[in-house]
């Protein structure tokens, strides 16, 4: 009887979400997977089946590997910079105010800083893209170059120099993401019992020791979760690349990512079948990343 009740409950709770999900997400995705085995151009009533041809072609596609390279770099650099900056800022905000007397305090104005730092997070990515495009303009009308030229420097091709464009792109992602993790880590730090710090301070630990010996280890879990979120974000970044970079992924493909190439291939070049194959590849890459990270970091609370 209890068993029956339990299954009834499970079924009742899962019915609506699973139905919605299967109908509106899984079924279109399955169709997209099927399309990756065809040469569909987006208009044919009957797509022609081509087997795994799209995938073998993918293997020799310069553009595909180039996009993977970008993902690789973003994946390595962006989370690292975001997490490092966020940790430092959070530390300064919460514990940078000195330890006069018994307690550790945040710096003056920490609420203000937190509010400001988080603000980019509430802006739509498209807006962030348009905004930074103006900041990065290559002549005196760009906010940065305007200042550089006022100081007598040569204007810098932030987005037009292929050696620089990807870093400029990553900088924007960092700009937008840091505040979120500052807030996250701040909460984490304020949850660390104050007496930990006091005890350590009594033992003569300096601020850096406090940071590396106490704060960091206690925030380990939070940092790992942050890493996964940021990693998944690194596989997407479609909108930002589309809006911000020169001709979506340029110059010379220096900033291109898979979603942007998929979009172009499917809708500009009418090769939906091939684009779907790229999508399938992206799917497995993201899944692999997530599983690997979570397995490696062995976070028990979030498991795949």
């Amino acid at each position, binding site marked *: 009887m209890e068993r029956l009740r339990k299954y009834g409950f499970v079924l009742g709770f899962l019915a609506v979400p699973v139905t919605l999900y299967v109908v509106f997400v899984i079924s279109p995705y399955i169709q997209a997977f099927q399309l990756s085995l065809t040469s569909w151009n987006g*208009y*044919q009533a009957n797509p022609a089946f081509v087997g795994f041809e799209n995938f073998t072609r993918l293997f020799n596609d310069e553009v595909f590997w180039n996009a993977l390279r970008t993902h690789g770099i973003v994946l390595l650099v962006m989370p690292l910079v975001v997490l490092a900056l966020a940790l430092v800022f959070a530390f300064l905000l919460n514990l940078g105010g000195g330890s006069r007397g018994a307690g550790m305090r945040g710096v003056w104005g920490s609420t203000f800083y937190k509010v400001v730092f988080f603000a980019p997070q509430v802006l739509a990515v498209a807006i962030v893209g348009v905004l930074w495009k103006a900041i990065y303009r290559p002549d005196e009308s760009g906010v940065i170059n305007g200042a550089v030229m006022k100081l007598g420097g040569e204007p810098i*091709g932030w987005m037009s120099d*292929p050696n620089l464009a990807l870093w400029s792109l990553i900088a924007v992602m960092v700009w937008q993401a840091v505040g979120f993790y500052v807030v996250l880590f701040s909460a984490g730090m304020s949850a660390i019992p104050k007496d930990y710090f006091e005890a350590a301070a009594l033992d003569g630990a300096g601020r850096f020791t406090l940071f590396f010996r106490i704060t960091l280890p206690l925030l380990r879990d939070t940092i790992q979760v942050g890493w996964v979120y940021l990693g998944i974000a690194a596989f997407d970044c479609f909108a930002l690349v589309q809006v911000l970079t*020169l001709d979506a992924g*340029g*110059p010379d493909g220096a900033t291109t990512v898979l979603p942007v190439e998929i979009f172009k291939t499917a809708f500009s070049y*009418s090769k939906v079948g091939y684009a779907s194959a790229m999508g399938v590849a992206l799917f497995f890459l993201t899944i692999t990343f997530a599983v690997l990270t979570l397995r490696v970091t062995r976070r028990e609370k979030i498991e795949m």
Partner: protein
Amino acid sequence: MSHPGEITRRQLLRRIGLTAFVAGPGVGLLSACATGGTTAAPSASAPASSAGTDPKNPFGVDAKKGLEVVIFTGGFKDDYAKLVHEAMYTKSFAGVSIKHTGTQNVGTMLRPRFLAGDAPDVVNNSGPEAMDVAALAAEGHVADLGPLWDAPALDDPGKKVRDTVTPAAIEEGKLNGKDMTLNYVVSHRGLWYNSKLFEKEGWTLPQTLDEFKALGDKAKAKGIHLFAYPGQKGPYYMLWNMLYQAAKIGGNQAIIDIDNLVDNAWKSEAFKASVTAWHEIFTKYSDKSYLGLDHTQTQIKHLQDKFLFYPTGSWLEGEMAKDKPDTFEYALAPFPTVTANDTMPYGAIQVGTGEVFFATAKGKNPQGALEYLRIMLSKEGAKGFVEQTKSLTIVNGSAEGVDLPPGLASANKVQTAAGQSLITSARFEGWYKELFDYAWAQQNILMGGRMTVDEFLDKVQKKADDIKADSSIAKQTRNA
């Protein structure tokens, strides 16, 4: 997709043409670039089911059937459709209902509807999301326009519609030899400059490459660049420029061969000479920072006399009207002569058509769709368009009685002087967009100084070869 511009976002749409001005007297000029006999045999699938003879209703439109029109809302917006063409249609068939949609996302919106068998009747297929008309036609979605061109004109039943428009439009609306699209507006492309500045400085238009560069030196002394193109959003202005220059050097065949994917067409003498010349002009007389600017930013710098020549089409004047200072007046210059024996004389100019409409074959009202296009091509319909958009249509004389703005007047003059020396449009832009995008991307690398001219030609040729070898890409050809 028959005309060159389909591809790209804004441009396409904006092609504001000149022909309407030129139209009355100038028809002959335009016809030079169209093949003489454009008589497509009226196909059996013509929707003119019943009474094909009534000049009032040649397609046999059922007056009770509604009509659905989807208009790309770019630089022309969609008032011309609502206030002019649709109003005329409802006047012809009193009580008929028209469903109108304006959108910038033609592809996202319509691709699924075509698949679902729920297509609208008339589509202005332009803008960044324009659909692949060849692919749609292969599925039988696009109506043959043969019957439209052969139908009696709305205002003059004694004339066929085809005799009321510039023949270039009919030619550029063909796909695999069939009349598929109505390319409604006309534009002239060449090198735009500030005639007031030239007057002030006492400069004359350079006619040869050497004179061009000599002027570059003079300008440099005044801190002005000779030439610029936008590295962003409109980098293909430069690709057009080099293609047209190649046609001036080696004749239209240079472009036709590239369109037809002829082996080594990109490595022809003419194209190589053109690229070499423009590479030198850009690297010696311009500035790399333009590679990071988009068309608007570059055009604003043009208005500020930061550089002399800008390669684009006649929509430029309308686009910048708001920002144009009194010290600036647009004028069109032809391409300089590069070699001693250029095929075309100095003065040759490019004329192209754009803003692509088609009628759907499997829609609910294919007869109505053809009639709608016939209305667009009437004097009243075309004139209404000109009034709404300040742009010219392919309909002869559609801008009669309109004052020519200076830039358009200048283009008109250049075209008259050009006579038969008209440079053709590059069609591969619409046929093989992947090749086109690749070519301008490589061109930016070349102009950025990270590649030599030969490397550039090799790379683009290789891409053309790949496209040719790719059986999944449907091929098009042209004869003229």
